[in-house]
């Protein structure tokens, strides 16, 4: 059933070091899905400092009414204390307010929601109607199907569950607006950026992940070599991150990143539910582990019982 009287959505455009984050294409994929059930006028919102170029990219997303651009000092670092009250007021005029379920969206959306006295639906992985959604709970051991009758529906969207939209030619109008007043409750001190030499985990077609079985940080070089052969991103289990083999932004799982690549190769990791939560929707899963009873084999399409220090070099040589 499609309803139509002036149903509108506001999508907050996420920015990363490259400017326009690829997550936005997935969030718009979810908007396209929502359009199966309801006629939507979609506005995009870009807020930040020196973000005109991001708005330019956003304007190339098809099916958008306008791109609102709030460019100014107060938007620098996108502090939630400054953005949330302003977003709460702005999104009150819409039927939907959507962000990606990234650390950016997770930090911001609940703060906006509480100011609006709204219970958001976070980590949306399926859209069943204009008001019914599924979200994973218990590390993905179940999907909760929920309905919201609230006036504005606040959603955060799991990138791994939706298809990208394709950028077209610039078409939507960019409409400048006044940026939010700064709240000065917190100060930005510093940000350690990760070097993006490899494809980003969340959008890579192939992901190679390593666990405690790698035994040392240096041995992750083996995975990087394999990843370079495959054009893959590299992930890690929590145990590997905790042991300092890999940085925190590489953690895949319930409390790390969620990926759903075409091919996921799990190497020297056991396959705890908390890890599976981050990769179970991958299309093809390969597991290499020396323990034939490792639970990861249960979640794999192809399993190889082998010592990774033999198997991975051999694999690199054969590719």
């Amino acid at each position: 059933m499609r309803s139509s009287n002036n149903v509108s959505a506001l999508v907050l455009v996420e920015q990363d070091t490259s400017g326009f984050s690829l997550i936005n294409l997935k969030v718009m994929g979810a908007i396209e899905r929502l359009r199966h059930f309801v006629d939507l006028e979609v506005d995009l919102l870009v807020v930040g400092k020196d973000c005109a170029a991001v708005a330019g990219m956003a304007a190339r997303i098809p099916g958008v009414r306008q791109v609102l651009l709030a460019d100014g000092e107060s938007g620098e670092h996108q502090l939630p204390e400054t953005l949330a009250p302003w977003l709460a007021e702005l999104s009150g005029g819409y039927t939907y307010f959507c962000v990606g379920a990234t650390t950016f969206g997770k930090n911001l959306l609940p703060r906006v929601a509480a100011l609006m006295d709204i219970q958001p639906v976070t980590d949306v992985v399926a859209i069943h109607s204009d008001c019914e959604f599924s979200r994973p709970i218990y590390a993905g051991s179940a999907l909760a199907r929920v309905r919201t009758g609230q006036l504005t529906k606040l959603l955060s969207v799991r990138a791994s569950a939706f298809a990208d939209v394709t950028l077209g030619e610039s078409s939507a109008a960019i409409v400048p607006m006044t940026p939010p007043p700064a709240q000065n409750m917190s100060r930005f001190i510093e940000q350690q950026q990760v070097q993006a030499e490899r494809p980003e985990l969340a959008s890579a077609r192939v992901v190679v992940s390593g666990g405690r079985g790698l035994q040392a940080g240096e041995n992750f070089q083996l995975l990087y070599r394999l990843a370079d052969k495959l054009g893959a991103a590299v992930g890690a289990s929590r145990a590997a991150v905790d042991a300092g083999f890999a940085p925190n932004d590489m953690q895949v799982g319930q409390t790390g990143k969620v990926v759903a690549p075409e091919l996921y190769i799990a190497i020297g990791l056991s396959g705890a539910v908390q890890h599976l939560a981050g990769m179970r929707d991958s299309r093809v899963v390969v597991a290499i582990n020396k323990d034939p009873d490792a639970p990861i084999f249960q979640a794999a399409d192809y399993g190889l019982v082998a010592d990774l220090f033999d198997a991975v070099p051999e694999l690199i040589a054969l590719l």
Partner: protein
Amino acid sequence: MKILVAIKRVVDPGVRVRPLTDGSGMDITNAKMSMNPFCEIAVEAAIRLKEQQVATEIVVVSIGTQAVQEQLRSALALGADRALHISTDSPLEPLAIAKVLHVLVQQEQPQLVLLGKQSIDGDHNQTGQMLAALCGFPQGTFASRIECKGDEVWVTRELDGGLQTLALRLPAVITTDLRLNQPRYPTMPNIMKARQKPLAVIPLADLGLDLQPRLQTLALEAPKLRQQGVMLSSVAELVDKLRQEAKVL
């Protein structure tokens, strides 16, 4: 400074759970219960601030059935000074939990409120951010480092793209991530001592809040099962399967 720590009782992370066949809930009768791992980290962070003589008092709070007193006692055994049990049999949404905690913040006036970043049952990752909004406090979510400096607290946050450090003006809300610390275990004498520590029970109804659920849960469904995979005998066979059968190379 006074620290308020919110802790939740959840199914132990080591227990494998699945939805009931009729989809009305999770099959968790008799499952082992524990303190939410992120809350353990929050309690540990508070104790370390007290050991550094930054904190003077640690108050722990949990909202739920009588059973949550078990987790409150654990927190007392670890080093919290006093516990509050807000008693209710109704499951509450994050917005409702945040409203309850907001009332307690008004009553207790802590300088720092610590929560886990996420409860491992509902996987919401919302309560801390909502509480910060309701209190009008700054928020430091997904913290992997906390340092008090004068009237500010410096928080290093784990983000998708690296680590970010913010200085928050106190009072503030912080939610803890996995790598903030390694929680300690309680000692036998401390477990005994914890029995004497104050634990106040406050019926939820006494707070006079409207906590009607905003979302309706229609069903809990099992995720799609993956087809049984195949075990291969060599790397060469694996490469061949990936090329010819799965066509991903």
